[in-house]
């Protein structure tokens, strides 16, 4: 089969481009340490999200507070119910985490599929009834972020929003 030499060249360059993309993404995963949302959260009964066991002695509703709960060192955790059409916590009062913390966020939905995005950041994930989303986020500087639902969840979807505050150390009122 005759392939023109220019096209053979382009074929090789295209493969290089593709491999380059895969390599960049691998660097992001392995070098920059970015993890994809996975199945580590396991499953949950949508009717009983509050009873989901985080670990021995701690359930979802135990850490479903606006102020993130301290685990150890710089690690904190918070549970959020994403539901039609609020984030609980997050909507009626902002979620608060301290600066320089690693926060594990647990979220699921008792009704339909939702999304959570903090505009201006790379915090973005899906919330699917039956599955527990578990992500860990590094929050460095104090800041105020919005939270929006970015997956259509019914009439009222456009109102589903909240806030997350990264609080300076000296203003942090939770346990540390």
């Amino acid at each position: 089969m005759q392939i023109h030499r220019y096209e053979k060249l382009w074929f090789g360059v295209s493969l290089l481009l593709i491999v380059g993309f895969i390599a960049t993404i691998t660097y992001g995963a392995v070098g920059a340490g970015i993890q994809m949302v996975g199945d580590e959260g396991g499953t949950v009964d949508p009717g009983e999200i509050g009873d989901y066991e985080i670990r021995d002695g701690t359930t979802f509703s135990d850490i479903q507070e606006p102020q993130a709960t301290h685990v150890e060192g710089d690690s904190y955790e918070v549970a959020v119910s994403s539901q039609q059409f609020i984030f609980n916590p997050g909507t009626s009062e902002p979620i608060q985490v301290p600066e320089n913390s690693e926060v594990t966020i647990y979220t699921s939905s008792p009704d339909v599929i939702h999304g959570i995005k903090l505009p201006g950041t790379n915090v973005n994930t899906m919330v699917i009834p039956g599955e527990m989303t578990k992500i860990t986020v590094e929050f460095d500087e104090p800041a105020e972020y919005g939270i929006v639902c970015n997956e259509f969840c019914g009439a009222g979807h456009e109102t589903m929003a909240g806030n997350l505050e990264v609080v300076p150390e000296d203003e942090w009122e939770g346990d540390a």
Partner: protein
Amino acid sequence: MGLFVDEHPDEAFIVRAALMSSFIALLVGGLMGTIQALHRTGFVQVIDNSTYYTVLTLHGVSLVILFAIFFLVGFFQWAITDSLGRGAVDPRLTKAWYGLMTLGSLMAGIAILGGFTDITSMSADVLFTFYAPLEAHPLFYAGLAVFIVGTWLAGVDWFRSWWLWRKANPGERTPLRTFMVLTTMLMWYLATTGVAIAVIFFLLPWSLGLVDSVNALLTRTLFWFFGHPVVYFWLMPVYMMWYVILPKLAGGRLFSDPLARIVFVLFLVLSVPTGIHHQYLDPGIAEGFKFLAMSNTMFLLLPSLLTAFTVVASIEHGARQRGGTGYFRWLTALPWNKPAFTGMALAGLMFAAAGFSGMVNAGMNLNYLVHNTMWVVGHFHLTVGTAVALTFMAVTYWFLPEITGNSVFSERLGLVQVVTWFVGMVLMANAMHRVGLGGEPRRTADPFYEGVTFDTALGSIGELHLQIALGGLLLTVSLLLFMAHVFLTWFDVASRPAPKPETLPPALSGPEHAPAVLGNLRLWTGIAIALIVLTYTLPIAAIVSGNGLFGNAGVLAWGVETLVSLTAGVVG
């Protein structure tokens, strides 16, 4: 040889019927888009926010299911008939598949329209992706199923024509257009398996009350099993037009027939095992499966990158045959005054840009930046909204005379129409990408949230929203121009002199240079199936063992979980 309508009048009738359905859907879906562009930017709001989602559902389903697929089946019917030189084996089958597609469209369409009125509680405000547990009326799911079965029968119809041709022409290489239709349909059969299972075994019974619940992640995964390759169902006909017709319009010949066949084989093999790249941020699917989907997707760039070269080389050939010279000056020798050429060339140019936003979308962790933002909306308006829609509109200027026997009403009007579409889309899609980078979400009636700001790099949100609205208005003007032109040509309002029959020149490098294995459809389909099994078995098994087939961990879930751990024990 004469015009297609004279050579094959019965098939031309079906093609015209398909195109008529397609254009009606385009008008409905397009006007919905106008409403959306003005509503969510805040400029003109004639509906309330909850109705927006009905509008959005109608927009998506009308355009990407009805407009695109009716158009391509009409085009494929022409391609098969003309390249094999024979009519349908049994015209009743042809009418049957067209009838089923129409019936399915009406069923789903009525369900969606029910959302606009309180006269009935029937509605389907579930958007084009219909993710459970959002629920639509059973008529919606049933309509989709009937429509898809119609497309399956279309494939059967065309395979039959090919089998009969092969018997009469043993040892001859399958004509290129037929090869493209058959590989596309094989890919379609594989792709629709996922959504057919989701709709027929889960969503339809659930909406009828026969089962209590569905496994939301399972049905979502089955949708995306289909949801990615469906874009290739739209793109492969576009590539056929760019490979087979565009070179002729440019004054040249297709650079390489064998390369075109390779590209179509690559799509058959690689299109389906990529769907999980729409689920990079889903819980319940392990990172390893997402990485695999990412690599498959990155390699799926290859046939499109090869197409870029082959198509541009074919256009350059035409430009040089027309007398063009120089490194780049030959671009000016092309027939830019012809809407069919210019529309397709602009669509191709836009696709090159769209390819980039697609590369970003495919980038696994990079997806955190853009998932479910307006960036994605910008991306698919460049791809299906321009590469596909503008090519289909442009090719109509060439195609309509062949199937109606009437000359186009006005080349100049056509040129204005395609250029307006391009300009409108550049304005709108560019702004969509940029508000998306600022974090503005998609699929929302009103992206103004109290206490939330979207920071955009260049231009304020207000400016960008204005560009979206203006772009949308330009697209509306272009849409209406297209509709007017189709009407004026179809009904020969100006009584122009009859058109000349079109001939397609042979490729520069013909099929006789292609290795025979390329034509072994069974081999390529087998490899495609193997890749699908490798990519999807484990993640789907995990999803089912997690929450059961129907969303409550029951006996079936236990059974699958046991099977999975046994297998892991044996393999690991």
